[in-house]
Every structure is written in C-alpha cells, then in structure tokens.
C-alpha cells in the first residue's frame, strides 16, 4: 500500500505528517510531501488512521503498483 494526496482537496492541516512522519513531511507552506515509498505492514493501521483523520479526506490509500 502507498499513500497519495489529492492536491486540490488538501488545505494543509498537516495531520498526516504528524501521524505518519515515516512517509510524509511538510513543505514550507505546510503541504505534505510524500516520499513515494510503500507503507510497511506495521504502519498500515496508522496510515489508515491518518487517511481517516484528514479533515478534507485528501489523504488517499492506494494499492501497490498503481
């Protein structure tokens, strides 16, 4: 599984980077930068929580290989 961002929906709440710093950091304006790597099994639960926590539902979970 990988995380992705819908850049139009995202308004830089920044929760995702707080919850999943292993894959996500913020740019100078508070918008998430994803490293593009797969989410390891032990972080899948947290990634799901981060996606649910995004107030604009801009954080997306995608199956690998997409």
């Amino acid at each position: 599984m990988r995380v992705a961002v819908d850049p139009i929906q995202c308004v830089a709440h920044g929760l995702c980077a707080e919850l999943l710093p292993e894959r996500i950091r913020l740019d100078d304006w508070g918008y998430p930068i994803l490293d593009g790597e797969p989410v390891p099994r032990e972080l899948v639960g947290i990634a799901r929580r981060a996606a649910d926590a995004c107030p604009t539902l801009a954080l997306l979970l995608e199956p690998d290989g997409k």
Partner: protein
Amino acid sequence: MAIATEQALPRILTGIGEEPMAELESHLDVHGPLPDLRRWSPEQIISVVERSGLRGHGGASFPMATKLRAVASRRKPKILVANGTEGEPASKKDRVLLRELPHLVLDGAAIAARAVGAGEAVIAISDVDERSARSLELAVDERQHAGLRGDPQFQLFGAPERWLTGQESALVNVLNGGPGKPTFGPRPFERGVRQRPTLVQNVETLAHLALIARHGADWFRLLGTDRDPGSALVTVAGAVSAPGVYEIEHGMPLEELLQTADGREPLSAVLLGGYFGTWLPGAHIRGVRLAAEHLAEHGASLGAGVIVALGQSACPVAETARIADYFAAQSAGQCGPCTNGLGAVADTVQQLATGTASAGARAELARWGKDIKGRGACQHPDGAVRFVSSALRVFAEDFDDHARHGPCPRCSHPPALPATPIPAFPVAR
C-alpha cells in the same frame, strides 16, 4: 498540385499563400480526397498511426497511437476534442492552422473520431479567436453542403483564453460547464466530456493525421529522424526579423531555422519548447538539431514548437522575473504547492533581479524547485519551476550580477518573451 510520393516540405503548409486553402475546393485540389473512412476499421487506422510514429504536437509529445488505443478500448460512446486553444502567448501555429487550413484539421478530426469510435467532435478554440471561429464555421458548413461522408458531428466551442485552458483535464472541465481548472482523478480517456471517454488531441497532430491517412505511414517517415519522424510547425519569436510560423523537418539544425527567420543580432540564448521549455546558451546553438533524440542531450524538447531567440540586448534576468510572475498569476489556485510555491518563486526571482534577495535565495529556489515538482493536479507547477531553474543555470552570471548590483541597463529593454495579459482565473469571493 501535391503528389502523393512527394517528400519535400512543406507538407502541412502546402498551398498557403497560393491557393485559398480555407475553401474545400482548394483543399481537395491540393491534397486530394480523404480515403473513404467507412472502409477502414478503427484498428487499421490505429496501426497506421502506430507505424507512422506520430506524436502529439500540443507539448507533451505523447505517441498518438497509444492515446487512440486507450480511448478506443473503452466501452461507452466516445467524444473527440480537437484542442486548438493555444494558451501559450508565444505560440501561433494552431491559430494559423485553424484560420488558413481548417479542412486539414477537420479531416484529421474525422479520422481520429473514426479510430476511437466517436460520433461527435468538438473543436475547441479560444473564445476571443474570432477569425478561427469564422474559418471553422465556414469550413464545417462547406463540408455539410458537399455531403462529405465519414464526418462526425462537428461542434465549435470557445474556451476562455488562459495559459491553463489547453491542459487536457481543464479543457474537459470547461466543456462540462466548469470553470476550466485542471482536475484530479479520472483522466479524460477514462471519464471526460459528459462522463464519456474523451480523446483530446492538439489540432496540429490532427492535421498530420489527415496527411498520413492519404499518403501512409512510410511516406510520413520519409522526413525526420528515427525517433522523431515527420515535420512540425514551429513558432519562432524574439530577436529575429521574420518571426512567425514555419514548417520544419524534425532534425533540422536550429542554426538554419534561426537564419531562415533572419536573426538580427547575436543571441545570448534560445528558449526551446516554449515557456515550459529549456534555455540553450547562445554558444551551444551550433550543432543542435531539432529532433527529440538530439534535444534530449540538452535536456530540451520541441514541446509545442515555440522557439524564442533572446538577443544580447535583452536582459535574461528581467525576462525570467516577468515570466515567473506570469506563471504565478496563471495558476488555477487550487493546489497549495502551486499557489504558494510559484508565488514564492516569482517573488524571490524578482528580489534577485532587483538586488534585494537574501544570500540564501538561490539555494532556496533550488530546494523549492525539487519540492514543488510533481505535486499539483496538473504539470503547471513543474513547467514553471523547470523554466526558472533552467534560467538560473544558463544565466548564472547575469543573476550574480543582478544580485550584487541590482537592475542593469538592459532591464528596460522591451520584453522579448511575450506574456499577453490574458486574464488569470477570477479570484473567488
């Protein structure tokens, strides 16, 4: 009258200035009739396109056959959009085509529509481009009266004149009644105009297709290079006495094109591939050939065919600052990295140009360039930072000079890169 086996140029521009090519009769006299499309299966058309190696002429150079197949393989009824919106201020070639050679574009649209199984073809142009609208209306009328077989139902659409209008998803969005901003999610070939699989194809690409259908894939490959066959329309602008639209063979030496357009002063650089393109320093012009595989060695591509010559009397720093501003203003304002990033890039370039930037300004620009890339719903931010980083690299000495001493005498030179003050998106609320 053109002969089917003729290899020489012009191809697309044949007859211009000699015959009233906008009229169906002259068009048919010069090019001959289109083969009866109803006898061609969609797959036959696609495989001819594939063998020809035709790529898109709207900027991204995507192989046309791949795109045709992606749309043709969908189940629902399809729609074709011929993209003649030409949002880049320096580009003129699509307008020349629409005004002077509408039948070549409509022929190509008919073939592409047949290839993907579309009964409707929308010809999208800029809503202030009245001359193209008139020429297309007359041409469509003529075809209907002549009872041309195999034509789809043509429809003309005027889209807002803006840098981003021609971006595929933005164009589909405006055709669906939206504000004409790029979208995130399903691509037009999956779900486009009225939710239907939609083929968006630049009008010049369609014009090439009209000739390939007549003369074949092998004929198309008689010109150009292995990886970049055929010819292309280019718009030459800047420090030349004869700016305008030229048809070139892919692989033509850049120097030769600049001589044809009558370069009037020593050049400090040439912008290849338009505003999302790459600067080539003047000292490197010799030996460069205008074909994908050669340009790639310089990190450049022909894009939508815009070539701007920057004379030594113009200031590259002032030009870069002006275009960086233009890019920021033309953002759709939807994605944070674009809205904030391009604004910050433009401000910082402006500070460099006026000698008011901080010591770390260029390092910051380099970091933003990497950070911003690939993070918008469309490639607008990517193209904008590519332009700026290319300028910072090629004009490093000029930027040094401005950062230390502020504006130079050349800064007041009239703008070399046109940035038509076309309205950006209206600000919400």
